[in-house]
């Protein structure tokens, strides 16, 4: 009886110690899942998925809180890429979050702008430059076409126009060439 108890206790203790040390040795790398999902998302930071940005949405997908079909800017291709990455079945985009649109860029009608700064606060990627009571403008190379600057504008001076070239998220350290052909970008950069 005592040997039985002793053997079982020794067994449990031994396994527990082995597991303890292997858990220390191989720490789970949860962050990399979120990073991989985040890399697939279009980085428009538009919030149409009901999360404040692309990375929070990636975290929600990783935790199983959000479905993979809530990203309209990513479109069907984005859903398919997510499904491949996560080993799930692709499904059609959830229409309640909006529909896929071609790449857009915001343009401020500078004659009508009153310099209220409200759009600067709304912009998730800091693509609008301007000062109080001064004319604002959009850095086309940074704009993701997320439409978040439209509702706060009191004079409706912001329009979305189709982008000439598709938006490519800039890589840190490299100058962004996508959309650089838009002359307002050059102007804004000179301005800043």
């Amino acid at each position: 009886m005592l040997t039985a108890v002793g053997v079982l206790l020794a067994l449990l203790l031994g396994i527990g110690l082995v597991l303890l040390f292997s858990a220390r040795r191989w720490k789970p790398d949860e962050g990399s899942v979120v990073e991989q999902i985040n890399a697939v998302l279009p980085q428009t930071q538009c919030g149409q998925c009901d999360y404040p940005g692309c990375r929070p949405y990636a975290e929600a997908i990783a935790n199983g809180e959000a479905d993979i079909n809530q990203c309209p800017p990513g479109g069907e291709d984005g859903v398919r890429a997510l499904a491949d990455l996560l080993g799930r079945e692709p499904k059609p985009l959830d229409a309640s979050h909006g529909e896929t649109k071609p790449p857009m860029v915001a343009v401020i009608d500078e004659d009508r702008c009153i310099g209220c700064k409200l759009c600067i606060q709304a912009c998730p990627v800091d693509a609008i430059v301007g000062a109080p009571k001064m004319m604002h403008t959009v850095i086309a190379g940074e704009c993701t076409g997320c439409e978040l600057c439209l509702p706060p504008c009191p004079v409706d001076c912001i329009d979305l126009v189709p982008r000439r070239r598709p938006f490519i998220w800039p890589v840190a350290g490299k100058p962004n060439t996508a959309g650089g052909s838009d002359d307002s970008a050059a102007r804004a950069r000179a301005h800043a």
Partner: protein
Amino acid sequence: MDLVLIIVSAALVNNFVLIQFLGLCPFLGVSNKLEGAAGMAMATAFVLTLASVAGYMLTAWVLVPLGLEYLRIVAFIVVIAGLVQLTELLMRHSAPMLHRVLGIYLPLITSNCAVLGVALLNVREQHSLVESALYGFGAALGFGGVLVLLAAARERLAMADVPESFRGAPIGLVTAGLMALAFMGFAGFAQL
């Protein structure tokens, strides 16, 4: 020659899933996608082989000398649970995506009766250490092979024009039954 026979016997003739009907839960649970099935096959192979060896060592070196054979099942389950935990740690570290795909089925390897079955059958057949290892490995080959085969078949069936009432699990069960019939052709191929 005997050692080869042990592998063939465990993998094909007495296939754990299709002939002995052990481990049916993961067999049907994770055979929806080929990728997940392959990952599950590898994880189970790791656990099966190690559990087989650990079961032998436990019986021959601890339980029999101390006259504690009646503790066999409890001790085996403890060891298997520890091994599965170790596998999960390793997988979460090295393949976080696969870990996510397998989900609940990874810890459920603990309750996979094929794993306990291998350890107990080793004792019944009075295998030596090498024979136990090969028996476990053969069982893993059989389990993994059959799992991957069924997953491949079910992936094709997902595209096929299956009658409404047979879609999903029913056609999967029919397929598994047909595979079991085919495996009966191995009967008498190797006696052990």
